[in-house]
């Protein structure tokens, strides 16, 4: 199983449950706005503590309220592309990309910096500060930053929103390659049924 997740979460007075197992390498999480998709990714990344339950990704227990397991985010090694880009505003693009790369265990990398720069077409942006990037440029950098931290799995929150179709296509191809060649488990939040149908081996509907 790539994902075995059964958790109970609450943000303020909103409560959600997420309960699925999937042996598809790429699982899509779909559902209407506000249903709890982002909250679910936050819980899996270790940014939001579920009230109870169990999170297992690729055989590794990340959280288990019964067993007292709760790995901190830095031990979970998720490559998380946030719904907003969430770049570090005081660091140039190159430093944003290098942030996770520098902390990654040696030999664990899944892509090289050059490859990322080429595929995402961000080589000309390396010297810029995030405040000067366009919406799509910021998103591409955020994707690059997540891929470079040598993640054990990917959490993608609408990664292709605000990207033009050519670039979206390049990224879809990259995601297919990561899925097939590296067997990297991926959890994708997307509102595009075309995207979901093309990529996902399993679709989890939240409602």
């Amino acid at each position: 199983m790539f994902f075995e997740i059964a958790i109970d979460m609450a943000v303020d007075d909103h409560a959600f449950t997420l309960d699925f197992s999937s042996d598809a390498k790429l699982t899509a999480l779909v559902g209407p706005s506000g249903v709890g998709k982002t909250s679910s990714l936050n819980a899996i990344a270790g940014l939001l503590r579920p009230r109870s339950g169990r999170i297992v990704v690729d055989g590794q227990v990340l959280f288990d309220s019964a067993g007292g397991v709760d790995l901190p985010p830095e031990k979970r090694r998720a490559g998380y592309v946030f719904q907003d880009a969430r770049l570090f505003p005081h660091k140039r693009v190159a430093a944003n990309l290098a942030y996770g790369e520098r902390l990654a265990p040696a030999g664990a990398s899944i892509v090289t910096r050059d490859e990322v720069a080429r595929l995402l077409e961000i080589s000309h942006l390396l010297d810029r500060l995030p405040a000067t990037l366009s919406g799509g440029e910021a998103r591409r950098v955020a994707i690059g930053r997540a891929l470079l931290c040598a993640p054990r799995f990917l959490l993608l929150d609408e990664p292709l929103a605000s990207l033009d179709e050519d670039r979206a296509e390049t990224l879809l191809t990259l995601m297919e390659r990561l899925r097939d060649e590296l067997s990297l488990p991926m959890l994708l939040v997307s509102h595009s049924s075309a995207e979901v149908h093309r990529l996902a081996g399993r679709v989890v509907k939240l409602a």
Partner: protein
Amino acid sequence: MSLTAAEWTIVALSLKVSVVAVLVTLPVSYGLAWLIARRRFPGRMLLDALVHLPLVLPPVVTGWLLLILLGRGGAIGGWLYDTFGITLVFNWTGAAVAAGVMALPLMVRAMRLSIEAVDRRLVGAARTLGATPLRAFLTITLPLSLPGIAAGAMLGFARSLGEFGATITFAANIEGETRTLPLAIYSQLQVPGSEDAVARLAVIAIVLSLGALLASEWLVRRSQGARAHVL
């Protein structure tokens, strides 16, 4: 205007006292600011209030409390003297202690404002990228609160340069040891007809603080991200 040797001594001492006071107080203030801004613990309000004390008490009283605590007869001062042979009263380290204590509340407040303005979600992003809490703090929170650090250092330095009441009470007014600019100005003010000497010293104080101001503005501008150009 060229300085006399006596004026140089005073300037050098003032700078030494203020720089040391700010450098030593800086990490302490930042730690306190971070605790008060980011942690919720019992006694937090009390700590906050305690930090403000040197601001609200007349400086002479602060100096007096320092004397009681850190004088050779005091609880901490006695221990320092017995254990290490260190005396703070009547020498420049005492003046630096007084200046640092008076600067503390200003530094903590400025830093706290900046820490509170840092978007905590960025810390979360750093954590997912593999940063431990300490590293996330050092690489995200700390640099993003730099405007507050610079403002705090500037305020603290200016306050240290201008500090009078606590210093004369705690560290006395000894030429070459604790007679900083304000104490020298005070001493001159005691001498009738010394307006010129007072004015000279005041101009020196103004020039020093102007320099510090320019330095801190430059530091922030240099290290700060370009802003979006859209209104």
